[in-house]
Structures are given as C-alpha cells and as structure tokens.
C-alpha cells in the first residue's frame, strides 16, 4: 500500500473524499446535499479518467489501476439511471461502492503508464472491458438489493422504490445482457489476437462461470418465481462472488497462469 503523490493520486483522493462525504450526508438525512456531493465527486472522477487517458495516450482500460478508475467513474451515472428510470434506490450503497473501488486505485495498484502490447491494440479491447465494468456495477447494486431482501428490510427513503427482490431481478436483467456482450466481444477479440475464440484460460472460465450463475438465476426464478425470495437473493450473491473472483483473484493470485496475466 502506498500513497500516490501525483496529480492523478490527488484526483482519486478527492473523489473518494467526496463519495464518503456524500455517504455521511445521506446517512445524516440530507439526501439532496448527498446527491450533489456524489455528482461532484463523479465529475472529479471524469477529470481523473480523462487525465489518465491524456497521460497514457490510449483508452485507459489496460490494467487493474485503470479499470478501477473507470469503475469509480460509472457509479454515479448508473445510480442516477437506476433511481430515475428503474425506480431502484440504494444510493448510499452506490456512494460506498464508488469509494471502495477507488481505494485500490488510490493506494494499491501500480499506476506506472504502460504502452499497449500488440495483443491489446484492437478496437474490441475498450468496449470488451468497458461493457464488463458497467455490468459489474449493475450486479454489485443487485447484490446490495439481494442483501437488503435477505435482511428483510424495506427500502429506506421517502420515494417509492421497487421492493428489493424485484429490484434485484431488474438490475440483473439490465446487467446480464452487458455481461453476455462482454463475453462475446472478448471471445471475438481472442479469435483475432490469439487464434481461438475460446482459450480455456482461467479468466475466461471464471467469466463463463459468473455468466452461468446468472443464467441459473433466471431459470430458477422462472421455475419458482417469488416464492423463495431468499434463495433468489442467494443466487444473486453467488454471481457477485464469481465476478469478484473473475476480476481480482485471477490477476492478483499467481494461482492461474494464463493469457490474461498481462492485466496485472
């Protein structure tokens, strides 16, 4: 763990501080102020991402540092979309998720700019990663709703939010197509770069496992509807566990040698 004494580091720390302040304000019951702080933090996250883009001169989605920067950036727009369009709350959780994903970018991951190796010079690379990251945030929100359902809590707040079980389903229904697209774009890119659309690489297999957990969730929910809401929620949580392993463990542990190890 190390503090980054750079402009990039400063931008990340300002964003984290804004997100945490937004969360504290929200918890203190000042929702509007909380939202404004969240939006302001998100703007700094945009500046931080653009700054990185300018610095490395390619779409900054090459390594874990850049990917987590992007995750911290999309939390607010997704939160806004869920609140306004899907009628799904949990903004406090979104603020928290934003701060959590930016923490490793600010203190753990190496931010040394890197040139793109030949395999990453493909137009498919940026959409493949970006689509996955969007899906992951939707799934993280779904996991929060699943936890709320398991805790048998009513959604907090004056607004009329969807009940947690339904919110979990709706969020997964938004995230799953993105997950599918990420898988397919990755497969297509793998074919062009390495000659095979499926390389049986550990990262590929974990991403397939995550996708299959959500596929299982849909079939399960088709079979049982809302009669076993706790089990529906457990499926959603299992999916998120698989995603976290796909995103982190494969890169960080040296357990699974494979093609995707350049992403460390």
């Amino acid at each position: 763990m190390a503090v980054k004494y750079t402009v990039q580091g400063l931008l990340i720390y300002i964003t984290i501080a804004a997100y945490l302040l937004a969360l504290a304000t929200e918890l203190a019951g000042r929702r509007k102020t909380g939202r404004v702080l969240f939006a302001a933090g998100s703007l700094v996250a945009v500046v931080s991402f653009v700054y990185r883009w300018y610095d490395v001169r390619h779409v900054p989605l090459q390594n874990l540092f850049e990917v987590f920067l992007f995750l911290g950036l999309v939390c607010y727009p997704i939160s806004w979309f869920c609140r306004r369009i899907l009628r799904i709350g949990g903004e406090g959780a979104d603020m928290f998720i934003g701060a959590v994903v930016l923490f490793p970018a600010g203190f753990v991951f190496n931010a040394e700019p890197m040139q793109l190796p030949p395999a990453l010079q493909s137009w498919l690379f940026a959409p493949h990663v970006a689509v996955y990251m969007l899906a992951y945030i939707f799934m993280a929100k779904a996991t929060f709703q699943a936890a709320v359902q398991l805790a048998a809590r009513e959604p907090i707040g004056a607004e009329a939010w969807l009940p947690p079980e339904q919110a979990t389903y709706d969020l997964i229904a938004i995230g799953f197509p993105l997950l599918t697209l990420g898988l397919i774009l990755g497969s297509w890119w793998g074919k062009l770069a390495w000659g095979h659309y499926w390389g049986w690489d550990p990262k590929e297999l974990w991403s397939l496992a995550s996708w299959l957990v959500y596929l299982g969730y849909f079939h399960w929910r088709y079979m049982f509807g809302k009669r076993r809401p706790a089990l529906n929620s457990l499926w959603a949580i299992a999916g998120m566990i698989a995603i976290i392993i796909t995103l982190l463990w494969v890169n960080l542990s040296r357990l699974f040698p494979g093609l995707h190890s350049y992403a460390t």
Partner: protein
Amino acid sequence: MSQFKRVVLWAALIAVVLLALLSVYGAFLGAEQARAFFNSLPLAVYWFALIALLLAGFIIFRRLLQTPSLLLMHLGSILVLLGALWGSNGGHALAKRLFGLDKIPEGQMGILEQTQENRVRPADSNSTRELPFFVRLKDFRMEYYEPGFLLIRSRTGQNWRLPAVAGQTLSLGEGLGTVTIQRVFQNFRIDIRGAERITYDAPGGSLPALEVSVERPGEPPGSRYVFEPTMGHGNPNDRLIMSYSRMVRDYISELEIVKNGTVVAAKNIEVNHPLHYGGYHFYQHSYGEDKLGDYTVLMVVSDSGLNLVYGGYAMLAAGIFWHFWGRRALRRSCVPARRPLASEDARPAKSPADILD
C-alpha cells in the same frame, strides 16, 4: 406445470450449474489441461446432452418457439455448441469420414523471408502435412514504441527509467553521479584503429544501443555502451547496472498466397489482423533468425464451425438484449408509468410459473 416439464427444467438448471462448476474446476487446471479436459469423452457426452436438452426444450415448451427473444437465445446457444463441436478435433475427424474433408485443425508453419512454404506441423503430431497452396513470406519486421528507455539499477536495488533520447540526463543522487544519454544507435558498429575507437550507425541490420556517460564528482568522466536486452551484464564492480529496453509495438509478416504459381491473396498480417484463405486463418505467432536469415512462425487454424459460432453469438446477444432490454423499453413507451409502492409487489407475478402453480 406438468411433472414432465418440471423435470426438464430441473435438468436444464442442473446442466447450467454443472457447467459453472466444471468451469471453476477448469480454471484451477490452467488453459492447456482445461482444453484437454473439456474436449475429453465424458465432456463430449455432456455437450451432446446439453444440445439434446435445448432441443427438448423447444418441443416441450411452446413459448421457446413462440417468443422470438427466447427462440433466438436458445437457438443461438445450440448453434454455438454445434459450431464448437464441428471445429473440434473430433469434428474434423468426423468431417473427414463423412465428407472426405481433410483439414488440419491447428498447426504451425515456419517460413524464411523470400521463400514459400506449404508444410504445416499439426499441433498434435510431429509429422508435417501439406496445404493445397503455398504461403510466401515477402518480409518480416518488428516495430517498436519510440523512444525506448534506459533502465538503471543500483546495487542497493533502486531503479530509474530514462527516455532513450540523446541529451536526456538524470541525477541519481550523492555518490552515484549523473547519467547522460550521448547517442542512440539503431545498428551499432565500432571500429578500433590503434588507440582510437570509432562508433557509428551502419545502414541495414539491427543492433540497437545507447552511448551513456556517467559523471561522478572527483572521477574522470567515462562513457559506456548499453545494449538490449542483456540486463545485468557488465562489470561486477559497476555501481550501476544498465540496459536498453524497447517495447515491441507490432510484429508484421508480409504474406502472399501462391496457388499454381500465381498470387491469389496477399496481406500484411499483424497481431489482431490474421489472413483468411482457403478455410484457414493465418496468425502471427512467433519469429526467429538462423543462419539462412529471418523467419516468421505462423499459427494456422482451420475455420470449420466458426460461422456457426459467430452466427450463434449474434442470435444469443440479439435474443438476450431483446428479452431483457427491448421488451422493457417498449413496455415503458407504451404503458403509462405508475409508481409502485415499496410495500406492494411492483408487477404481477413475473413468470408464467407463478400463475401456473
């Protein structure tokens, strides 16, 4: 819902969960062993069972045929599985037996510059097989990101990086002195005439090097030549270990396909840009140099089943987006929005199963 339908749905659910568990198991095996595992006989049984289950689903559940989104995604899954089976080693063996289609599933070929070659070494054998056409290598070259870097490491493990541009200078602090890049060579040559050393960049060839000077207070200035990629070479008494690092931007093979003495296709292939001809894709795989000259190594992969897989992908993605995004968007634009209350279920029972039971 009838008992039979229920059994089929349970079977589908178990098949999905089983594949998830097998994927996790495969992740622990590493890519090579996982590939062998998923291509083994017991797994072949699994793949066929999954296809059979999907087909059974169409017969048993009318909705899978009648709802376009569900039809697209389930049919797409079948196509992906069929395409993968058709493109596997077993699929190639079957195609040979049934249709006399004798393709090499995967292999490698090495080609010297300015020569042509049709022999491929298949991935699973030591003998060679021949393509019905020749692949000619006009030129192989590598491109690098400019500038490269001078990497410096002190004996105490400190690291520095300096852009490899003449005139760049860096102070390493007390005791270690100041490093300056004096010259950058593409193809370093040195002539020694008596006590005189003459260094110069010779045309053609490639021996990238840097001339680096190190100035330390109280010592006469000295310069040295730093090459790539021999990190750690040099005098053990040196206080600084240096190497010249350049990152490859691309590997390029200029290829031509020659059939019956005429060029029928040509492409400069790079990573991410293979050549497609005669039922095969040709990928930049590796390269080398021997006494006869530079050569490239291509990976040759049969394209059998690929269209089925890609068609399946398109249907799967279209079906899933339509089912989860498209219908919701349409519902939104057709039905006036109603704010559901947290205490009530937002929608009527979501699935037909809720109603059926």
